[in-house]
């Protein structure tokens, strides 16, 4: 059964279209990276999935209508919005007590075990914790919930590189298994590249790209060519071309690797490279047509 299933999902704020008839199917057991520029509709899509905002079209999450059944859905789904949403007046022990009190799938022992490895003071107030500690606490709460769907909206925003790396490592090592589904949005694409199983680019409320990471790795190649090979490389119809230190870097979809190798140094592009190629091309084309 798909974990998330959307058909013609729409959402507008006044005249601004945030989600423009999206069709989406996320299977159980995948880690989907939802990537897009600011204002692409990522947070709106996540809020719709969690029943936090009304929408048009059809949407089923874990077999439920999120808008009508948010409280029931939240028994099986967890959510980290960003580091600032834990109530600042609350004590760490109160946060544990509260979640244990209201959530039927919360395992307090798990949360305590996770917190025991941190320096978070149990009696301290959340407002007294650093940003990194607040994220650790939120992660401890969420990881102790036996949820089938975890939604992360810029969960490491404002954190330094160490906390960011620890966050995703903990998520993979201690939480994820094939029975759970994770949907994550972030601007730090490179840091989650190894974590994802599926990839989706969203721009202006539309899905502009969707593939599995396996497909991504087998389809796309980047070649760095010197000016004397540039014409031959362009003849192979690259998706995108950019320059660096006097050399051209061209990105290809389904190109023949030996042919590219004859033109220059071939390497696997990063998600960020493909994102710039696809979204940058579209935005550039739109900008040029204006």
């Amino acid at each position: 059964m798909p974990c998330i299933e959307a058909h013609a999902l729409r959402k507008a704020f006044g005249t601004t279209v945030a989600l423009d008839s999206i069709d989406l199917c996320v299977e159980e057991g995948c880690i989907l990276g939802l990537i897009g520029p600011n204002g692409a509709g990522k947070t709106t899509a996540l809020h719709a999935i969690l029943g936090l905002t009304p929408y048009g079209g059809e949407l089923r999450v874990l077999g439920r209508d999120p808008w009508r059944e948010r409280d029931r859905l939240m028994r099986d789904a967890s959510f980290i919005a960003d580091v600032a949403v834990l109530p600042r007046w609350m004590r760490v022990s109160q946060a544990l007590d509260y979640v244990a009190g209201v959530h039927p799938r919360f395992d307090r022992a798990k949360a305590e075990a996770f917190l025991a490895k941190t320096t978070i003071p149990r009696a301290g107030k959340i407002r007294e914790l650093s940003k990194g500690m607040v994220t650790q606490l939120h992660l401890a709460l969420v990881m102790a919930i036996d949820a089938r769907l975890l939604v992360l909206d810029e969960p490491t925003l404002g954190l330094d590189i160490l906390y960011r790396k620890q966050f995703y490592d903990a998520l993979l090592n201690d939480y994820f298994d094939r029975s759970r589904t994770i949907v994550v949005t972030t601007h730090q694409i490179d840091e989650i590249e190894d974590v994802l199983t599926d990839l989706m680019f969203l721009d202006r409320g539309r899905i502009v790209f969707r593939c599995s990471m396996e497909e991504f790795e087998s389809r796309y190649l980047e070649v760095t060519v010197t000016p004397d090979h540039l014409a031959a490389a362009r003849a192979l119809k690259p998706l995108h071309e950019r320059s660096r230190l006097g050399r051209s870097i061209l990105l290809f979809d389904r190109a023949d690797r030996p042919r590219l190798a004859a033109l220059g140094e071939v390497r696997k592009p990063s998600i960020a490279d493909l994102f710039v190629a696809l979204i940058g091309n579209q935005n550039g084309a739109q900008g040029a047509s204006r």
Partner: protein
Amino acid sequence: MTTQSNAFPESTVAAQAAPAILSATRPWCWSVRRELWENRSIYIAPLAVAAVYLSGFLLSLTRLPQRVRDLAWLDEMHQRHAIEQPYHMAAGLLMFVWMAVGAFYSIDAFQGERRDRSILFWKSMPVSDATTVLSKAAIPFGVLPLLTFAVTFILQWTMFLFGAGALAGSGLSVTTYWIRLSLVPMSLLLLYHLVTVHTFLHAPFYAWLMLVSAWARRMAFLWAVLPVLALLALEKLLFNTSYFGSMLMYQLSGGGTEAMTMPGAMPMDPMTRVTPGHFLTSPALWIGLIVTAAFLAAAVRLRRYRDPM
């Protein structure tokens, strides 16, 4: 945060078993509890006021024996009135504290969680908007009345014990003081007054403040007051009447006559004043409760739609 692979110990039996079925009231109870964690003024304010009042009363005890001797020349009704006065003042003061705390709490109940974006955390829990609204409504409609009664009860009985001690030390009759004071009927009357007037008749006001709190993006207090003032002014300008104002005042203060008779006069047994039958059949009570339910239902709907600010 470390990344050791053995990060968690073996899951507990509870975690492996099917999730426990929470009783329907458990999320509500925890939601009320977290309101008390967040808004400590709910219990600190009445306790602080009671402590200050008690200190003042204790300081005045040096003059109590002489005052009681002076009262001997008055008739029984006036003696009772003079002896009960500091006790009534204590109750009145704590009722005022309830109204102030309840109003400030209600006006910030839903705006605060959107202002600090914590609404996203609360909504990530399996707690419905209706449960949340009812748990917040439980503060002015349940917690504050009980707390006000408990604090007033303890304060008045403490005042009596110290007062009786001061009189006994001066060789005056504690029994007469006890009889004149009628502390037990006074406590029962207080409980009845708190439930009827301050809980039921005032309910629409707290519900209105909560509704505005759920609706307004900012300046909730102004949004709560301005429409009321506008309606009062409009009625006066268009019809030269003040029915709306009279209705508000009746609900806020005069409605007390629905629950008791003879306001201002104190019979020998104060409990003879209560008229629960009249109160329960009063239109003011039922219209007020219907309006309260409508305001709270609107607050549930608004909370569902509102995003963080």
